[in-house]
């Protein structure tokens, strides 16, 4: 009950809807950071995962990378980068990208390995070139799993970009960190609500992308 009154107070205050520290600015910032980190991670992770999955090589190395990456404390890494590199975009982007690559890479690899070999053989038998096999047979079948890897990465980025406010980053985490320092619980809870909504919106976006891009035959099979 208490929390709900705070949320109501935060969102009905018109001062929170405009200016440099307004909700629209912070939301756009958060989306920008997320897209940027996800984009860089996808550019690195997707092709590598597709190729290693297609050829079936490097599975052990990937498992090692995945375990090592999970053991890295993302928040600590962020503070460390900030201490070493100082103020700027890089100290925050590096941990975000490092955090996002393993789920994309490993899931893409797994998805490609899990593709039923029968249609792949059939495609080769029909005389399809290797690139055709990869993009027109394996990729569509593996797409749902690949999207789930991207979704995991996006969720983690949204979550960690929030914490990045501690090292002077913008985005929705600002409300929570500033609110904690200012002992303004209304602001803290308002920010937390926005961040949670952002995470749920990310889930919804990936659900919609899945509906639009995954072919109906693959969806029925799953």
């Amino acid at each position, binding site marked *: 009950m208490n929390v709900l009154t705070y949320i109501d107070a935060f969102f009905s205050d018109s001062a929170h809807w405009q200016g440099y520290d307004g909700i629209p600015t912070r939301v756009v910032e958060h989306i920008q950071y997320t897209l940027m980190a996800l984009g860089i991670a996808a550019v690195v992770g997707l092709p590598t995962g597709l190729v290693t999955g297609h050829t079936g090589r490097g599975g052990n190395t990937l498992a090692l990378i995945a375990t090592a990456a*999970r053991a890295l404390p993302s*928040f600590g890494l962020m503070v*460390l980068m900030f201490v070493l590199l100082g103020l700027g975009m890089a100290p925050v982007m590096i941990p975000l990208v490092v955090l996002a690559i393993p789920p994309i890479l490993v899931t893409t690899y797994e998805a490609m390995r899990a593709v039923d070999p029968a249609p792949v053989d059939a495609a080769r038998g029909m005389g399809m070139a290797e690139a055709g096999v990869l993009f027109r047979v394996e990729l569509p079948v593996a797409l749902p799993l690949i999207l789930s890897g991207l979704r995991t990465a996006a969720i983690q980025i949204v979550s960690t970009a929030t*914490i990045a406010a501690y090292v002077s980053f913008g985005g929705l*985490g600002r409300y929570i960190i500033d609110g904690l320092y200012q002992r303004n619980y209304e602001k803290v809870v308002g920010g937390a609500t926005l961040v949670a909504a952002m995470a749920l919106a990310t889930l919804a976006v990936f659900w919609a992308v899945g509906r639009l891009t995954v072919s109906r035959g693959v969806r029925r099979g799953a």
Partner: protein
Amino acid sequence: MNEFFDLPSDLQHSYLGLVALHLREALLPVLAGLLVALPVAQLCVRLRWLYPPVLWVTTVLYAIPSLAFFVILIDYTGLSELTVMIPLAVYSLVVLVPAIVDGVRSVPQETLAAATAMGFGPVRRYVQVQLPIAAPAIIAGLRVASVSSVSLVSVGMLIGNAGALGNLLNSGMIYNQPRLVWLSVIGTAVLAILVDIALIVLRELVTPWMPRGSRRTTRPTALKDAAR
């Protein structure tokens, strides 16, 4: 060498004290998560229609960023370790429930029928047959949950210094001592790896019938879990 591990007195802990605190804050939630996940997973195995909605709920809960989860709980549990531990327990469910369901489902029908024919009741069959056979899958889930839990505890620093080793990050910043930040990052990473190794040893201990170092069967699940 000793000076390297000296901490500011406001942390009120030695380095080893922080390590112990970190382990407690990270692993108790996973244990609580396991105690919740076992009955939930058993229900999902019994009632198939229940599994998709349960998966959906755990995914949505997992999506809620840790900092947001912490600060909403402050109103109920204050600036305490409990506020950090409750979200960690909830997060562990997204890994543990599917791991247990997959593990229990992988028990062959013949094995279950044999147990029933030997006069095992449902409870005894579950504890003595299903759980041991599912143990490798369950421990694979526990590994993922524990390692991410160890890494997430540090965020608790932001709510009243409840982040164990993560508290060193703040000290490192306010006293301008990169050494403390290094101590936190390396300590947390090493702790995560040690917990992972401990669980692998546990798996070897509870499944003495499995061939030692059976990589072939464990690697694919490890990869799949890593992807979560």
